[in-house]
């Protein structure tokens, strides 16, 4: 495929009377890591949610692999999110009742894999994220940095083509945050997964291949502003 894998064009979204996006757009190629930066309230998370098919824009289109997301039914969009997309959020994304390996195996089980098979497939991801020793622990028994590594492992375990990461290091100190970023970007590059990385921290954005800035609901590509 030559065009972008994921392409948002001229997105508009208003919450009640507050505009969040006013003509935002972003094109991402397969395997590309793009940081979406901007101050709080600029619309960057809304852009991510529209691109991931979580939120439906008021107008504009999001095309993924040749398909317009808003033209898909709810079931098809859910299937896409499960099979092709991975998600890492700031916190609160692990199921507290499940162990770490069960958490990582969860998307595989939702995709129809049997329990033992899914957990077997999850283990190498824990190893890759350097947390194999935590497999049997529950989220309440591990640190925030460890929890984010579990979340990264879970996002990548189903071999997604796009990972959406919304402030993945927002709740971590800088040392842990950097390690999570190193592991996330290295694993994504190895798997050829594209990453949409929403962050307000330049040090986190510096792990991406390029950055765009969202300001007042509009996107601006700094590389092309010269």
């Amino acid at each position, binding site marked *: 495929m030559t065009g972008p894998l994921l392409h948002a064009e001229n997105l508009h979204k208003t919450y009640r009377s507050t505009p969040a996006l006013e003509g935002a757009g972003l094109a991402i190629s397969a395997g590309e890591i793009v940081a979406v930066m901007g101050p709080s309230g600029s619309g960057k998370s809304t852009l991510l949610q529209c691109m991931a098919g979580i939120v439906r824009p008021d107008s504009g289109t999001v095309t993924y692999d040749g398909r317009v997301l808003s033209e898909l039914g709810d079931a098809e969009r859910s299937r896409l999110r499960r099979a092709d997309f991975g998600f890492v959020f700031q916190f609160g994304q692990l199921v507290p009742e499940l162990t770490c390996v069960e958490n990582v195996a969860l998307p595989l089980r939702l995709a129809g894999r049997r329990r033992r098979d899914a957990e077997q497939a999850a283990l190498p991801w824990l190893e890759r994220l350097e947390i194999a020793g935590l497999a049997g622990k529950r989220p309440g028994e591990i640190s925030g940095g460890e929890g984010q590594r579990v979340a990264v492992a879970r996002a990548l375990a189903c071999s997604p083509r796009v990972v959406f990461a919304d402030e993945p290091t927002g709740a971590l100190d800088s040392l842990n945050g950097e390690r999570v970023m190193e592991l996330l970007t290295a694993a994504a590059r190895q798997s050829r997964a594209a990453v949409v990385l929403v962050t307000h921290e330049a*040090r986190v954005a510096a792990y991406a291949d390029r950055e765009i800035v969202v300001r007042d609901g509009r996107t601006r590509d700094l590389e092309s*502003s010269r």
Partner: protein
Amino acid sequence: MTIGQTLLGLLEEAGPRHGYDLKRAFDERFGHDRPLHYGQVYSTMSRLLKNGLVEVDGVEPGDGPERKRYAITEAGVTDVASWLAQPERPEPYLQSTLYTKIVLALLTGRDAAGLLDVQRGEHLRLMRELTRRKTEGDLADQLICDHALFHLEADLRWLELTAARLGRLAAEVGA
């Protein structure tokens, strides 16, 4: 970086050395981006010699200029100690070129917001490069790159804040 004191410190650590060996040791440990020129080494060593901080420990005649071997003196050791004990003056950059450019852009009716964006892009590009170097490097690379990254990040925060205050700044400078 103070080259004189760094060379003195290296002399103290490794014992008497030739200027060439000092240059190599300096480049290996601290000269990642800017290796020393031979001229810098020899002029620095002559100054240290004149000030009694090093002494000539031996001279080897060769085809080119004779090779002096330097040793640190007591005064040199004291100089290194007091340099290390002295905190560095934080540099507040009160007269930054960027500030001047932005004000001038406003005063001359040019696109100050665009200027800030271009600068942001340039900062981010360098941060990406340093991050790549850090990820692939050893601990020394990581620390050196982190120092630069934190400074660039501080600059970026200033650029963002300034972008948010451009309207007020324009009014205040009378643009």
